[in-house]
């Protein structure tokens, strides 16, 4: 174990995986010479060379599109999208090819690529440096989606994504890149995709969250007198449905926290599953605390947009009093 920040844990995963597997390569804007604008890929170009840590042209569709071809040539490319909201040009490739190519070859060709990006707000950045676009990615068939909330999971989920035979999108909570430190296993560390994590056990109410909303859930739980169970979804697709249903059944009261706009967000999928499969376990309506259905705002008013401890506490009180 060593104590690392979240972004250091990601960097650690890269060093271990590029060393372990000569087919793994990293590509993106400013990932090489600069080591990434957040330094997630620092040191890789010096250690593994400019052909395995590639500074690309400024072209998100070109990055992901050429990664498809690299897979065909036997590589396992890890593509960095510099920011959440700058990733959208790559959605064309993701939707029309990345998520479909294996299927259209009848399963004969694998596309073991990774798309990773910093996501989320709270960092007081200019417009479009702070989106929470997970629903777009989750909605795309043929790809998996993971969002870590701790340094150890950031390393372990990225490692699992790199080793996975299918395309995986990893969104990293940029708010916690440097503000969160934690114990991280040294060397190879895999957190399997599709396994949620019980963050803390409780019996009155269950908070369901992922990514940057997990520490918020913990802060809200600290502010509450009730006994709070917290479930970190970790892998949005494939979802650990058993863990979700178990956490819901345990308390009968569920609050889902999501930073993205509300409508058709990932929280709606969780709520729908609970409506379909947990009705007899529920003692109150499932409530969502989300961003609003507005453009992600400029940073002087972003606190009003973001789910907060106060809003989570309020939602918990509602379901407890129902």
């Amino acid at each position, binding site marked *: 174990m060593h104590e690392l920040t979240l972004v250091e844990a990601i960097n650690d995963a890269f060093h271990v995986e590029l060393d372990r597997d000569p087919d793994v390569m990293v590509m993106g804007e400013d990932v090489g010479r600069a080591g990434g604008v957040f330094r997630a890929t620092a040191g890789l170009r010096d250690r593994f060379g400019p052909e395995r840590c590639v500074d690309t042209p400024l072209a998100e569709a*070109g990055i992901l*599109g*050429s990664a498809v071809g690299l897979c065909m040539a036997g590589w396992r490319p890890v593509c960095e999208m510099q920011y959440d909201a700058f990733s959208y040009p790559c959605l064309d490739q993701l939707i029309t090819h990345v998520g479909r190519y*294996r299927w259209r070859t009848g399963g004969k060709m694998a596309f073991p690529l990774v798309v990773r990006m910093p996501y989320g707000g709270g960092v007081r950045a200019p417009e479009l440096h702070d989106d929470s676009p997970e629903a777009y990615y989750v909605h795309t068939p043929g790809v998996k989606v993971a969002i870590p909330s701790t340094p150890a999971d950031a390393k372990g989920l990225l490692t699992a994504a790199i080793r996975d035979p299918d395309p995986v999108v990893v969104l990293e909570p940029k708010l916690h890149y440097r503000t969160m430190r934690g114990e991280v296993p040294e060397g190879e560390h895999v957190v399997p995709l599709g396994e949620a994590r019980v963050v803390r056990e409780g019996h009155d109410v269950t908070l369901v969250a992922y990514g940057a909303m997990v520490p918020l859930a913990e802060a809200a739980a600290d502010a509450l007198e009730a006994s709070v169970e917290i479930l970190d979804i970790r892998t949005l697709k494939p979802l650990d449905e058993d863990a979700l249903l178990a956490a819901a059944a345990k308390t009968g009261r569920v609050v889902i926290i999501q930073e993205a706009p509300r409508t058709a967000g990932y929280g709606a999928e969780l709520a729908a599953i609970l409506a379909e499969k947990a009705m007899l376990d529920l003692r109150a309506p499932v409530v969502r605390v989300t961003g609003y259905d507005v453009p992600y705002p400029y940073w002087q008013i972003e606190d009003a947009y973001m789910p907060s401890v106060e809003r989570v506490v309020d939602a918990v009180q509602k379901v407890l009093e129902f």
Partner: protein
Amino acid sequence: MAQVLPAERDLRRVIGDGEAVPDGEVEGLSEDDLLELHRWLVRLRAYDERSLVYHRQGRIGTYAIFWNHEAMQAGSVYALDREDWIFPSYRESAIGLLRGMPVSTVLSWWRGHPAGWWNPLDFNVASICVPIGTHVPHAAGLAWGKKLRGESTCAIAYFGDGATSEGSFHEGANFAAVMRAPVVLFCNNNQWAISTPLEAQTAAETLADKAVGYGIPGVRVDGADVLAVYEATREAVARARAGEGPTFIEAVTYRSAPHATADDPSAYIDPARVEEEKERECLGRYEAYLRRLGLLSDEAAEAVRAEALERMREGIAAAEAEPPPDPSLLFSHAYAEPPASFESDLAELRRVLGA
């Protein structure tokens, strides 16, 4: 850096007209090569003409016609080695036939049947790209990835004139150029994107001019001259293998058939112009060339055509003999390891279907 050649305004030609324009020849092509190229052209022509019939008979679905595009496909593929990769658009749907892909596979694809899936590794032919130009970065990536592995494999990506307006074309071409990827960007400029004419597509004087902006050579050839296409592609492949990066080839022809079976061009194309273009279609021109050389008799031409048509008969029979796809095929190949939900989804589907 790559030498930037100005686009050649005049289309490169090899085949003459039997009158004022003399025939040329391509160095290194034997008589056997010339006749094999003829068989390739006829195989593609037979595929296309029969597919239109099969569509009208309700035996395949909507089909993108490639009549008079055969020279661009056969001529360019003939310049490749077997290990080189082909990235077709839907206009090149049957290009895999030139690599030994069964006719029934391509017909199944147009029948919307999973028997139309193929393993690209079997033929080094990527899946047919339906959205415009989005496969250009794939070809760039494949070629770049092979180069990184020290292999001499090239890639060729086919797209139309309309695709040069797409962002993916630009990103792929720029990527290929920056990475000096051994790739040929092959534009079949048939001057129409469904109903949109070239002048509504670009303000550039020629599409090959776009190559200058990427720092790569751009050349223009007569797309109905199979030998000119072959020669231009052979030069591009040689450049690529020599480590000099991509070449943009603009092969100019005229779309003398509807965009697809669902299209009626009488609304936007002058039929007289189409008839004019049909006079100089690529197969007829090449057969006339071979006859002038004394390499093709009526009997031989008929035998080649009969053989191609027989392949089509066998192909459609095989495609139609495919059993209806089982619903499990919905789920079986989307992921290497299907999520747990697929099993219950399939069970539920079978229960409801009673299948």
